[in-house]
């Protein structure tokens, strides 16, 4: 089976966060791994697509094959609960930087640390691990600072002046950044499944925090083995819906 991915290109500054911040640094932090590489949780990725799917099903509620579309949605996204019949056939990974870029930053970090590991003053494995941990923390902060920016916003009171205690800072990812999420099918998708997934992806235009305040515009597309899939939406959704 081909390797499927969901590609997200940021069109505006975006914060993929969990709602928390770093004390003394920012009020709203982007999710990132130990090396500072940003990512968007797979649960959030699935969540925004499920939202779009619900809107699409609402639009299709008057059609004759509405039940089939609902069944396709259940096949793709599953239902609540952990029983046998409630699982989905599609698993969403976290949306992270493209694989080659992920490996690039990891290799760059290793290249920076490897010469330090040869220091004869490092007595044992514990000392090496401590050095790696310190360098990792340095690299994390530097990469995060270099791949994002800080933005501050204040609420305005009725008199047009800044409300007290309303200043909030938010870390945002640069527009132009691309994230990809691995999609894993446990079973072969049928045309209706493919079409509905493609429609959900096509409908997805925003994600992350503060979407109603200019942040989080994204362009989503589906990839198979790195190449964009254009046929699923046209053949498997648009044609079916128009019948």
């Amino acid at each position, binding site marked *: 089976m081909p390797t499927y991915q969901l590609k997200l290109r940021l069109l505006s500054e975006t914060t993929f966060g969990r709602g928390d911040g770093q004390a003394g640094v920012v009020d709203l932090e982007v999710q990132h791994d130990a090396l500072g590489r940003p990512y968007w949780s797979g649960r959030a990725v699935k969540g925004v697509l499920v939202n779009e799917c619900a809107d699409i099903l609402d639009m299709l509620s008057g059609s004759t094959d509405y039940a089939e579309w609902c069944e396709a949605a259940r096949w793709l996204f599953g239902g609540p609960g952990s029983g046998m019949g409630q699982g989905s056939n599609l*698993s969403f990974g976290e949306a992270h930087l*493209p694989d080659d870029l992920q*490996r690039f930053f990891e290799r760059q970090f*290793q290249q920076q640390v490897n010469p330090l590991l040869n220091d004869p003053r490092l007595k044992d*494995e514990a000392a090496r691990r401590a050095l790696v941990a310190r360098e990792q923390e340095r690299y994390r902060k530097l990469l995060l600072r*270099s791949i994002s920016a800080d933005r501050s916003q204040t609420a305005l009171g009725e008199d047009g002046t800044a409300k007290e205690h309303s200043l909030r800072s938010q870390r945002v990812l640069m527009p132009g950044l*691309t994230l990809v999420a691995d999609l*894993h099918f446990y079973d072969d998708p049928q045309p209706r499944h493919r079409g509905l997934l493609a429609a959900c992806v096509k409908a997805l235009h925003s994600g992350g925090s503060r979407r109603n305040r200019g942040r989080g515009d994204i362009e989503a597309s589906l990839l198979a083995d790195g190449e964009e899939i254009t046929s699923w939406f046209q053949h498997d959704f648009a044609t079916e819906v128009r019948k």
Partner: protein
Amino acid sequence: MKALLFDLYLIKPVLIARTEPGDENSAEALAYLPGSSIRGALISAYMLRNKLSKLDLKGDAQARGWFFNDLCFLNAYPALEGTRALPAPLSWRVEKDYRAAVDAEIWDAAGGERPGYLQTPATLGEAFSAMGGDGSPRLADPRRSMEIHNASWERRIKQAGDSQVFLYDALAAGQTFTAVITGEAAASMAEAVGLADGARFSLGRSRSAHYGLVEVRNLRTVEDWREGDALPAGQQGRLALVLASDALLYDAQGQPAFNLDAEVGAPHSAAWYRTRVAGGFNRAWGLPLPQGLAIQAGSVFLYDLAQLDKHKLNELLERGVGDRRAEGFGRVRALVNPPVVLQRKDVAFAWPAQEQAALSDESQKIAQAVGLQCLIGFLEEKLASAVANLRVEQMEDRAQLSRLRMAARSAVDLKDFSVITRHLGQLKASAEKLKTARVVARVGGVEKRSRLNEWLEGLARDGAAQEFWRQPGNQDGEPGWNVLLALSEDDRAGMVGLLPTGDELRRLKITYLGRLLDAVLQKASREIQRAAQKEVRNGG
């Protein structure tokens, strides 16, 4: 006994939650992958392959035999240096102050009396151990990843009352656990479910998003597999029976039992054990399993070899003890005459090397943008420090300073610092004032004075020069680019992303020289203004 071993590489974090009660808004993963979950995943794979909506245990004798009668699906434990680790014996102790020391001496209470030098024995911090080739134990805990998630009852609404925040403490991705399936039919079952190198399964909670995906690697069959020591030919000495997994044992009255005496047919002479609640989940019912009180993995029971029936023992070691053995419960390993003291060794530090590979055009652009922003961040810090350490003296003409600032901005716009030199050359009467003005630079704690016009000419030369990174030596030279703003090779080596080269570096250099000049002149102009205002206030 014959066993099928395979590694499970965690592509995503895995969350198979503990049974013990905790925060209702969080779930904490077990430190291993239970055999019951692995069995469940293989049953799902079997059903998927055969397009079954439910498993007909009455009609499908083969499936019934594989998954419920003939095979045991043992827990998958962390792989330590290529070896399947096992729960560390609860009889092991270390000196309390050295609990975190990776080369500490371990006293095995099952081996003999406490050594005199061990003043305050404490239990180990790590849950798993594996014997190295040198006979020294390595200890480790699996890495964990904690994620905060939120869910809402209403779509697109995230607010208190409508949303729930919860925490998942899962096993981190990127780790390897080694699983075992014992039984003669393991290989045929593996073929039927598609259990082969590269196969992928999902385990645990939230399998449809972010969690659960594992990949099978290094599948192999071992003909004569065991978890502990082989039983000796003779009948002398101590035998420590260590639980390699939780055991659900019941006495004749149906109450939980907390030793192996009934199983081995002899009383134990010492025991180090704990209990915990064991549960599980049945996906066919969609309900949790009834919970029971189990003897915890790692519990140790000491026996006199002379009192034991070897045949019964071998059976126990092969078959396991108690209930739910097919799911990996009740595994026992034997330690014959365990040593009193063991020398702990550290797990060798290693990371998977990343190969050099070209970036795609899109990734290259992102890496370059990151590199540029990183470099700018360093330059901004240098600029702020340089401006703080520079001042202009003996310059009273604010108009002259303003004209110089305009020339500096023009130089930056045109990316050509010779604009400054031409401006200086065109000065007439006011040129004398520039000759008396001084620039004071504080470098390395020492103040260095130079004429303002000479300093400006120096900056213009720096702007035209090719070098961007700091040149070695000459740190006591004129306070220009090399001394004030240039970044060292050490700085360069520690940066992230793809750094700019060639023309882009030259443009950056001119920009920052221009900003330095502008900031210093602006600072001087404000000083003159402040001095004048002070004079007016003082009635001068």
